[in-house]
């Protein structure tokens, strides 16, 4: 019986994240527009874009290979699975033990790997720029992320997100310096990974400043749609991770009634809204930096994460 | 002199002597080369008999575990060298580097040299051995100078002066040994016989023994080519005919070292005498370090391998100086394998130098391409001499270094590092010699590959399997040397 519930929850979560992801992005766009005194697109614009793109035919470059064609599906699948494994509104997902936090990071890595290859596939200069810069950013962002993971898992004695969330709710955690540092580090990583300002500008159309956009420059039609969904999912994933680790309140634990689950969903949506709100404000408040300032930014994130780990020992010792 | 062993013993000395006499009066060079090889072969056959039939020690001659191996070894190398020398000399005649007159002299001297070395190895008498070693030395002096080029004369003159100083020192040492023995054994021949000396050594006057050992070490050490007494060795190897270089490195050095060993047994039999170890260790180590660095700057291929001989003599002396069953065993093994390997290398080098018409390393390249057999032979030889498996020298060096490191870490470290330095030099030259684009004449060499093959095969086999009898002899001697 419990298995069935867990299965339902698991599937439900998969659909929820898939459904909510574009909405979050749309929400952020809308907010940014408002903050810039613009009308901005409606909240459902991303859904419309996706549907339109899906219906369009794919324009494929002559020099494109099968890598270019399967990459969108793999990227989408990997990101979706990763997002599905993060406890959003309920822990104790059926397959949550299939991948712990390290594995989730690595899954996103796989997606990025494929995307970077796709960027190189057609053999144009912009794709190359995109891939090489993306990998450079990743090469600093991912270690930082792992340092944060270290901090959390050393604290919780586990790399399972659900366990971490559980232990965060626990009484003995309290407020810690290292947790604060980890949070800041994680935020910086999230910004970088999702190609947000100041690291990258998702809305730019000036090629030389693009990173993520340059990589997918050659994509069109359903392929582009899938990649867009993947990036929406990624944003959602990061917000959910932050939410479930640092603000684990209101997550339903397996075995509770349907009511609890509903409540949890509501809480979760609220958390997402808050996250999106903060992101929008941050993005409008700050300006994009040059590509070669990014390493400093992420290096700082890495250092913060490492500092968090070390401080953890100090506080433990004390 | 009735039992077969003694007859064989006599034959080993008589055949070379007769051969020398015959060859001295034989005008035809073609047949003389054959006679030379034949005489050497007969000697070898007789020596092989000694392995099974061992005569009782007489007043002048003796066969024991120590020298039985070396007599067989030296007769074997002498034989293979004589075969090699046949083809080598034929070429020298063609290009006119040697005249038939000199050739007669050469062959006579060759047999005389063999006579001297066999006598030195077999003699049971300190004085007799001294005479024999000097005879061998002087003959080689004459053969080194045989080309009569200024460089050859210089080499021979250097060899002669240093050698005869060595003679003098060794003789003085011998006299001192006699004096030490006389007061115990009494006057007369007994006081110079090995068998007697070793038995009565404990009663000898230690001071006399110490003094004598200093002189003997320096005297015979000059022949061994230990630094700083080595100066004659490289030039003598480089300027003389290659067969003589092979015999020098392969045999004469061994014989001189053999003499030192004989005296070391006497020394170590006397508890009161100072341990000969430190002296030998320091001389040996000095030789190894010095020679391995000298290998780098050698433009002349034969001179380079001569320095490598110095290095290996140093290793052997070091091993015996360290003592202990392992190190001594290793030293004996290394003596045997080094003479085989080094003479094989000189065979290759001789043919190579003849084909390419030069001894300059820089002008010989890509041998494995132009002359595969010679080239790979050289590669194998160098690999063996550098102490890499699957050749036997690896075993001896393994034993020396490991057994030393447990006792004297610093010494072992110095030894090991200088071995590495030597390896570096040899490989560096080998790269140029054997690999890369071939250079110079690539006409097929009229060479006798059998000696090279035989030597290298033995060395390879020794690395994997040693005959138990040999092991037993070596182990007995090793025990004796402590």
């Amino acid at each position, binding site marked *: 019986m419990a298995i069935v519930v867990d299965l339902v929850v698991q599937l439900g979560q998969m659909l929820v994240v898939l459904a909510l992801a574009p909405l979050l992005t749309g929400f952020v766009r809308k907010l940014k527009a408002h903050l810039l005194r613009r009308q901005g697109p409606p909240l459902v614009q991303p859904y419309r874009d996706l549907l339109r793109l899906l219906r369009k035919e794919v324009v494929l470059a002559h020099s494109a290979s099968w890598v270019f064609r399967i990459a969108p599906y793999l990227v989408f699948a990997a990101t979706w699975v990763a997002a599905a494994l993060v406890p959003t509104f309920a822990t104790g997902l059926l397959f949550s033990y299939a991948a712990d936090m390290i594995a989730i990071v690595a899954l996103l890595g796989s997606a990025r790997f494929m995307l970077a290859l796709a960027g190189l596939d057609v053999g144009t200069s912009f794709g190359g720029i995109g891939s090489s810069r993306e990998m450079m950013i990743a090469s600093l962002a991912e270690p930082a992320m792992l340092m944060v993971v270290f901090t959390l898992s050393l604290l919780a004695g586990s790399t399972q997100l659900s366990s971490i969330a559980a232990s965060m709710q626990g009484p003995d955690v309290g407020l810690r310096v290292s947790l604060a540092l980890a949070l800041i580090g994680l935020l910086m990583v999230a910004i970088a990974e999702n190609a947000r300002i100041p690291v990258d500008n998702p809305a730019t159309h000036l090629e030389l400043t693009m990173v993520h956009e340059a990589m997918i420059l050659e994509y069109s039609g359903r392929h582009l749609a899938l990649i867009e969904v993947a990036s929406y999912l990624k944003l959602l994933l990061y917000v959910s991770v932050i939410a479930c680790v640092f603000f684990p309140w209101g997550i339903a634990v397996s075995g509770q009634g349907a009511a609890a689950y509903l409540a949890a969903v509501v809480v979760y949506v609220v958390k997402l809204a808050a996250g999106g709100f903060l992101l929008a404000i941050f993005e409008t408040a700050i300006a994009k930096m040059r590509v070669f300032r990014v390493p400093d930014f992420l290096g700082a994130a890495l250092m913060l994460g490492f500092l968090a780990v070390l401080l953890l020992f100090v506080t433990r010792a004390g | 002199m009735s039992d077969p062993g003694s007859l064989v013993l006599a034959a080993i000395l008589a055949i070379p002597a007769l051969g020398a006499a015959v060859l001295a009066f034989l005008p035809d060079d073609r047949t003389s080369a054959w006679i030379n090889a034949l005489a050497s072969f007969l000697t070898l056959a007789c020596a092989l008999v000694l392995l099974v039939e061992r005569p009782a020690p007489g007043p002048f001659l003796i066969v024991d575990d120590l020298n039985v191996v070396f007599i067989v070894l030296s007769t074997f190398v002498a034989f293979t060298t004589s075969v090699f020398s046949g083809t080598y000399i034929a070429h020298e005649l063609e290009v006119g580097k040697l005249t038939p007159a000199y050739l007669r002299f050469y062959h006579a001297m060759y047999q005389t040299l063999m006579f001297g070395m066999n006598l030195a190895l077999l003699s049971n008498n300190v004085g007799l051995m001294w005479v024999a070693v000097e005879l061998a030395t002087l003959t080689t002096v004459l053969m080194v100078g045989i080309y009569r080029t200024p460089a050859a004369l210089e080499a021979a003159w250097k060899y002669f002066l240093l050698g005869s100083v060595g003679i003098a020192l060794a003789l003085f040492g011998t*006299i001192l040994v006699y004096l030490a023995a006389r007061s115990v054994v009494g006057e007369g021949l007994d006081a110079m016989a090995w068998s007697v000396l070793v038995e009565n050594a404990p009663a000898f006057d230690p001071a006399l023994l110490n003094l004598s050992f200093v002189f003997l070490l320096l005297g015979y050490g000059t022949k061994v080519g230990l630094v700083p007494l080595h100066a004659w060795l490289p030039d003598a190897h480089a300027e003389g005919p290659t067969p003589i270089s092979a015999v020098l490195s392969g045999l004469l050095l061994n014989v001189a070292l053999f003499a030192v060993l004989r005296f070391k047994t006497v020394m170590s039999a006397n508890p009161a005498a100072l341990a000969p170890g430190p002296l030998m260790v320091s001389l040996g180590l000095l030789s190894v370090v010095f020679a391995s660095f000298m290998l780098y700057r050698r433009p002349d291929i034969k001179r380079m391998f001569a320095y490598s001989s110095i290095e290996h003599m140093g290793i052997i002396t070091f091993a015996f100086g360290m003592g202990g069953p392992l190190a001594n065993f290793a030293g004996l093994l290394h003596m045997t394998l080094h003479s085989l390997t080094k003479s094989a290398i000189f065979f290759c080098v001789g043919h190579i130098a003849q084909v390419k018409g030069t001894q300059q390393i820089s002008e010989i390249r890509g041998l494995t391409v132009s002359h595969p057999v010679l080239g790979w032979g050289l590669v194998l030889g160098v690999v063996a001499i550098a102490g890499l498996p699957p050749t036997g020298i690896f075993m001896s060096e393994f034993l020396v270094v490991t057994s030393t490191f447990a006792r004297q870490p610093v010494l072992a470290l110095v030894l090991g590092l200088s071995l590495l330095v030597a390896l570096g030099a040899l490989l560096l030259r080998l790269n140029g010699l054997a690999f890369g684009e071939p250079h110079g004449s690539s006409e097929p060499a009229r060479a006798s590959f059998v000696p090279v093959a035989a030597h290298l095969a033995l060395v390879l086999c020794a690395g994997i399997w040693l005959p138990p009898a040999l092991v037993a002899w070596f182990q007995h001697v090793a025990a004796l040397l402590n």
Partner: protein
Amino acid sequence: MDRLALDVAHLFAGGLVLVSFMLLYQDRMTGLVNNFALHALVVSFSVAWQAYIQQAPHLYITAAIALVVKAVVIPVALHRIVVRLGIHRTIEPVVGIGLTMLAGIGLVALSIMVMLPITAEAGTLAREDLAFALSVILLGLLMMVSRHNAVSQVIGFMSIENGLILAATGAKGMPLVVEISVAFSILIALIVIGIFLFRIRERFDTVDIHVLHEHRGERP
């Protein structure tokens, strides 16, 4: 009688050392050769004396050999060579005579020091003689290394041989093997030297080693 014998033996041995010093001091070719003749003469006397006191008749042979070959034949030959090569000019020692002398004295001291610990049981006669013989040998070596000229080097070498004979005869009852071998080696030595001087003269006009070592291998 025995004391006297010992003293005479000492006299000769000491005399030999003295002559070696004279050799070191001597810096004229002809003088050097004559000095060497004297050296050989003393050796032969000392050997003869040893033969007398040891009742060892075979030693007389050695004495005779020394007298004939080294005191007469070789000096004459060397004179010939010197004259033929026309090197009557003074030969400059490497370091000053005084220094050489000092070194020589040091060597004598060293040889005595080394011989001292030998137990008297080995025979005082032997011990003293050995000390002197060793000093003669060392002085000969010193001469070889302190002179440029090949002829004087040969002489130095032969003085070493004399020292050896002194030692050998001093060793009582040493079998004939040794004396013969000594004579033998000197013979060969002379032959070879002769050959070499001859050839060398054939190719260069001097036996000065400076000229020789121009031709060593691998000139830098």
